[in-house]
């Protein structure tokens, strides 16, 4: 076993994890930043195409309280008001800091350029051209990390469990993927920054490592999850024709800049039938657009591949070129000419509102254990406002780093517990004893299809019950031990991923079964309409191999700062 020791351990090197590492080091701690993939290249941040919301007031007057009002409105009454406020109030500090680090936010007339994204009451979202927000943010944070000696960056390590001793987090254990050796990571405090769970779905906009690892780690460590039923579907994910080397959510920036027309198979605009008319502007919120496209397809008015058409054919060539320059050439390589044809789009799993329950210091109920970024649940309630994803990565990352550093400094030692570490590593250490496992890659594909078909944005009790039953069967089929012990063993890796994904999928399904109403990203066809008695957040915990679901009234938003 490879032994490591540090003050603050950060699991996941996307935007939130990198910011957390920088903040913890700034406060005088030694940091280890671990990722299963490469540092700052996996995760969701690098995939972000455009908007980052912040009440700068650079372009028109604004205040973070307006941003908060829009965030709470989008969350359909379920946001944790303290987390939502933290996000909005601290956004400017972080966006300015990123600007000082030369991220390259788009500028116009001497100020940062802000676009008006759906759900916001004014132009509030900064970005980096062209479709380059995620790569620019990742590159900027990597450059900062590299300058700090107190941060050790380690890729290719998959964390398999948090190590808990006497109810407190004391580090983690995992697998060095390149050699297959086990790793012990002793730490005085631990931050989970592993992102969301989009990989549970067949059509998703995330990367491969967004399988909900952090939710499973937190749950098994004794922390609570919250709002797990709310999976955000991005309405206009690319569907057809087949396009390579481009992110499936790339049409969002096109809509910000050029509007575009969303059409059904009969060539009609249809959003107005579902309560939000568009007239050349991009105003459709994500939940309404997703609903509208599903309903058009259901009514037999979908595109050939099963979505809607998105058309920019009315936009002059020169305007297309001005707005997206080199992207137009990349589209041409995919035989897509927007001046002559429309593309097909459909909802695609994009973000998870739910996640690890934390307080405003990003602290879970397990001492020494923190979470940051999309791994955190609660700030966005039942539906996330466009642009809040990267902002929360920065704000929650910084806050988690600061909090975890303060905790680490207050502790003399990690309190590492060899026996607890050995227990956590048991399945991995007993790999050689595994019976023949099923085709893990096929099982993963089956799980994704099951979630798409039965646990998408439109749900019924029958479909959810069937999904839960199948998940339990799949867990049986997976077996108690992983197989395979070669370097970068794909079968072992799939087993470990499936262990987490099946657990997290059950969390989503269980919470969705309980919530007998429709709200934001959770639409029950058998329970249409939002009910005041469901102004509740559902918390999930893991106790002796059982998943417990508990309802708690949502905290009311304070009108003034606490």
């Amino acid at each position: 076993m490879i032994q490591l020791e540090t003050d603050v351990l950060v699991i996941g090197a996307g935007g939130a994890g990198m910011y957390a590492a920088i903040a913890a080091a700034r406060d005088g701690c030694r940091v280890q930043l671990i990722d299963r993939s490469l540092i700052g290249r996996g995760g969701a941040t690098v995939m972000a195409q455009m908007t980052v919301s912040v009440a700068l007031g650079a372009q028109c007057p604004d205040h973070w309280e307006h941003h908060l009002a829009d965030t709470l409105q989008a969350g359909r009454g379920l946001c944790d008001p303290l987390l939502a406020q933290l996000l909005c109030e601290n956004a400017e500090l972080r966006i300015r800091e990123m600007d000082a680090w030369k991220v390259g936010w788009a500028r116009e007339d001497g100020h940062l350029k802000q676009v008006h994204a759906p759900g916001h009451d004014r132009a509030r979202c900064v970005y980096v051209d062209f479709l380059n927000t995620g790569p620019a943010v990742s590159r900027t944070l990597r450059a900062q990390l590299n300058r700090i000696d107190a941060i050790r960056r380690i890729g290719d390590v998959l964390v398999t469990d948090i190590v808990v001793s006497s109810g407190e987090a004391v580090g983690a254990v995992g697998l060095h993927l390149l050699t297959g050796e086990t790793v012990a990571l002793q730490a005085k405090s631990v931050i989970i920054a592993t992102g969301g769970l989009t990989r549970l779905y067949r059509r998703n906009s995330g990367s491969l490592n967004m399988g909900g690892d952090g939710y499973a780690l937190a749950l098994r460590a004794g922390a609570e999850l919250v709002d797990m039923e709310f999976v955000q579907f991005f309405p206009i994910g690319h569907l057809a024709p087949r396009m390579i080397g481009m992110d499936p959510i790339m049409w969002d920036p096109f809509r910000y800049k050029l509007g575009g027309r969303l059409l059904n198979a009969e060539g009609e605009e249809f959003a107005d039938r579902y309560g939000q008319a568009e007239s050349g502007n991009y105003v459709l919120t994500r939940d309404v657009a997703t609903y509208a496209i599903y309903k058009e397809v259901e009514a037999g008015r979908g595109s050939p591949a099963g979505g809607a058409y998105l058309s920019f054919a009315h936009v002059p060539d020169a305007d297309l070129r001005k707005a997206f320059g080199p992207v137009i050439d990349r589209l041409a390589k995919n035989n897509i000419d927007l001046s002559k044809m429309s593309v097909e789009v459909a909802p695609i799993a994009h973000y998870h509102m739910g996640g690890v329950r934390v307080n405003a210091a990003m602290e879970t109920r397990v001492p020494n254990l923190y979470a940051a970024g999309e791994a955190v649940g609660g700030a966005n309630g039942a539906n996330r406002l466009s642009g809040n994803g990267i902002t929360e990565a920065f704000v929650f990352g910084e806050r988690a780093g600061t909090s975890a550093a303060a905790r680490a400094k207050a502790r003399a030692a990690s309190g590492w517990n060899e026996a607890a570490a050995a227990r956590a590593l048991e399945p991995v250490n007993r790999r050689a004893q595994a019976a023949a496992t099923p085709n893990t890659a096929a099982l993963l594909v089956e799980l994704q299809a099951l979630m798409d078909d039965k646990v998408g944005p439109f749900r019924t009790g029958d479909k959810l019950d069937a999904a839960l039953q199948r998940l339990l069967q799949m867990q049986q089929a997976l077996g108690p031990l992983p197989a395979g012990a070669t370097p970068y063993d794909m079968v072992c890796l799939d087993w470990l991923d499936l262990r987490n994904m099946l657990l997290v999928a059950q969390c989503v399904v269980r919470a969705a079964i309980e919530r007998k109403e429709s709200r934001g990203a959770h639409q029950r066809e058998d329970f249409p309409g939002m009910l005041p008695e469901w102004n509740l957040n559902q918390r999930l915990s893991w106790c002796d191999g059982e998943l417990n679901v508990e309802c708690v009234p949502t905290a009311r938003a304070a009108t003034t700062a606490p």
Partner: protein
Amino acid sequence: MTTKTTRLHIRRGTPGAPARTETFDVPFTPGQSLLDGLRWIRTKLDPSLAIRFSCINANACKECMIELEGKAVYACTQRLKEGDMHVAPLSNKALVHDLISEIAPRDERLLD
């Protein structure tokens, strides 16, 4: 859409053992990527085939770099074609397993 077939010849193995070439016939529809084909092999034929990638389709993570006919390519942006295609791990990097080579920057590795 019409389905075509590509014959993928894949160099496989781990460090210290002699490499072998295995051949898989992969059905595809025009427009699909080499990575699509490799993922299809894992799901349908052999889940032990080692290939790494993160972003799947966006060419953002840069992890899926392998050699096609002796030239470095990203598996996610290379399209499948009818007939034979020969793939191998990067020849200028240390082999890890099958198509995976050690690509992390030196200062981001656990072991030297």
